[in-house]
């Protein structure tokens, strides 16, 4: 099963409606609506604690939601009868802290899911992983353990690991937040290439310049709500909401008062 067995149904790839998530009586996401079309690159922006990461985790069914509906590939995945494993096999995720498995080499990290979650043969999995590692400049590190790599290399390896399962949707959770500024470019370069290749992505990010460049849609989260969403040109140049404006002022000239 090297190619996806079914063609994507028409309509949005992901549709979130009225999503609500709380921990105890702390409401983290409140009445969130979001549409992701195939080929979209959706950037979630907003200050820490605004709910960006939680939203990503909800899309991947890592969190049980309190209300609302999440549709993926035309099917409601927030239904309790849906097997989360089946959903996650079609969605890739990259974490802020890389979360590579330290006991496996980079190559083994990349072949783990294809072999044991997707039933790919050892050879085919290795071939695909080597090809992707090569493409992202990690060929020489394939047989090293993650701890021997730099942060930027580890995060690139984590992206490759997510891509090895050929997901239809890629979730990126502040993938550059733990990196040195000089390494950020490396990882963003990969994401840019993926965007250009038409990969559908939802990413939480603090890199405004990057979001402006690659996003097809930007959503500004504040206090668990999507306060405003639209094409980057509109959000960055002419935000409707005062809060969006204040946030952008803060992050675009840090230190400036």
């Amino acid at each position, binding site marked *: 099963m090297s190619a996806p067995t079914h063609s994507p149904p028409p309509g949005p790839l992901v549709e979130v409606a*009225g999503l609500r998530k*709380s921990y105890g*009586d702390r409401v983290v996401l409140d*009445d969130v609506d979001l549409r992701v079309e195939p080929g979209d690159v959706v950037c979630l922006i907003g200050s820490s604690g605004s709910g960006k990461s939680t939203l990503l985790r909800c899309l991947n069914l890592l969190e049980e939601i*309190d*209300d*609302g509906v999440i549709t993926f590939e035309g099917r409601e995945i927030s*239904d*309790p009868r849906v097997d989360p494993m089946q959903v996650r096999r079609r969605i890739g995720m990259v974490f802020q802290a890389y979360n590579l498995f330290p006991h496996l080499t980079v190559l083994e990290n990349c072949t783990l899911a294809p072999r044991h979650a997707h039933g790919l043969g050892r050879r085919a999995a290795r071939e695909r992983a080597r090809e992707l590692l090569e493409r992202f400049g990690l060929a020489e590190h394939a047989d090293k353990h993650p701890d021997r790599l730099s942060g930027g290399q580890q995060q690139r390896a984590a992206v490759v690991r997510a891509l090895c399962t050929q997901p239809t949707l890629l979730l990126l959770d502040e993938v550059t937040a733990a990196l040195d500024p000089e390494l950020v470019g490396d990882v963003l370069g990969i994401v840019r290439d993926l965007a250009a290749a038409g990969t559908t992505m939802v990413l939480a990010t603090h890199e405004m310049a990057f979001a402006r460049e690659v996003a097809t849609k930007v959503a500004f989260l504040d206090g668990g*709500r999507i306060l405003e969403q639209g094409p980057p040109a509109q959000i960055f140049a002419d935000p409707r909401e005062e809060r969006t404006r204040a946030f952008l002022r803060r992050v675009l000239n840090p230190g400036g008062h």
Partner: protein
Amino acid sequence: MPASPAAWRPSERELARRAERRRLHVRRSGTASASTVVVFALLGLGLVLSPGWERVQETFFSWSDAKESFPLVLEAFWLNVRIFLVAEPAILVLALLVAIMRGTRSAWLAPLRIVAVGFTDVMRGIPTLLLVVLLGFGVPALELQGLTNDRLVWATVALILSYSAYVAEVFRAGIESIHPSQIASARALGLGPVRTLRHVVVPQAVRRVVPPLLNDFISLQKDTALVSLVGVYDGVFAARDYASYNFNYTSLVVVALFFIVLTVPLARFTDWLQRRVAERERAGAL
């Protein structure tokens, strides 16, 4: 503006979903209960229908013998509890000491390392049973001045030595599993090697090894029975005594139940402790 929780009413879809979750939950519990009942019923039936069941029931599960031996076993079993209560803290201290000795890096402390390695190799190599017999009978025979000749004491010392060797290795595994970056950051804060161990490494290591430690605790609780080999009148000795006088083994089942009753609360307590630490220190999955 975050809406107050009170203002929110679950949607129709959410209510339907909750009903569905409940239904799935009920179905799962139903399956679990049914399979449990079937499995245990079959096991019980197999036991009761076995040809020798009646004889076994008479010699191992006689109610009157259980009642009669209970107070005898209870009184003697109290000694097992006391041995355990004395040995366990001693083992924890000695084992941690040995583990730390083994982990030292300084050239001056090489003799300590050798002692620690030798101790572990020897004590772990000798069967606990032999160690109890050797110390329980051997040391009093030396007729040393100023040392007790009580076989109970020496048998307990044997348990402490034997188990310290095992537990030391558990501690060492825990200490070595702490990531070097933790030590680096403690040293960077200006802590010396001893304080790094005491405040950063050991507390994390201990948390990590609680489950295997509990394993060794329970094993020790059971091995307190070995003191009966050197003639100490503990729970097992009392039970065997009763069995040989009355030609009935029910007393052995009684003492076995005592051991179970002793270990189960400890296991539940540790589970609870582990869960509490996890809840406090780990938020979510990340």
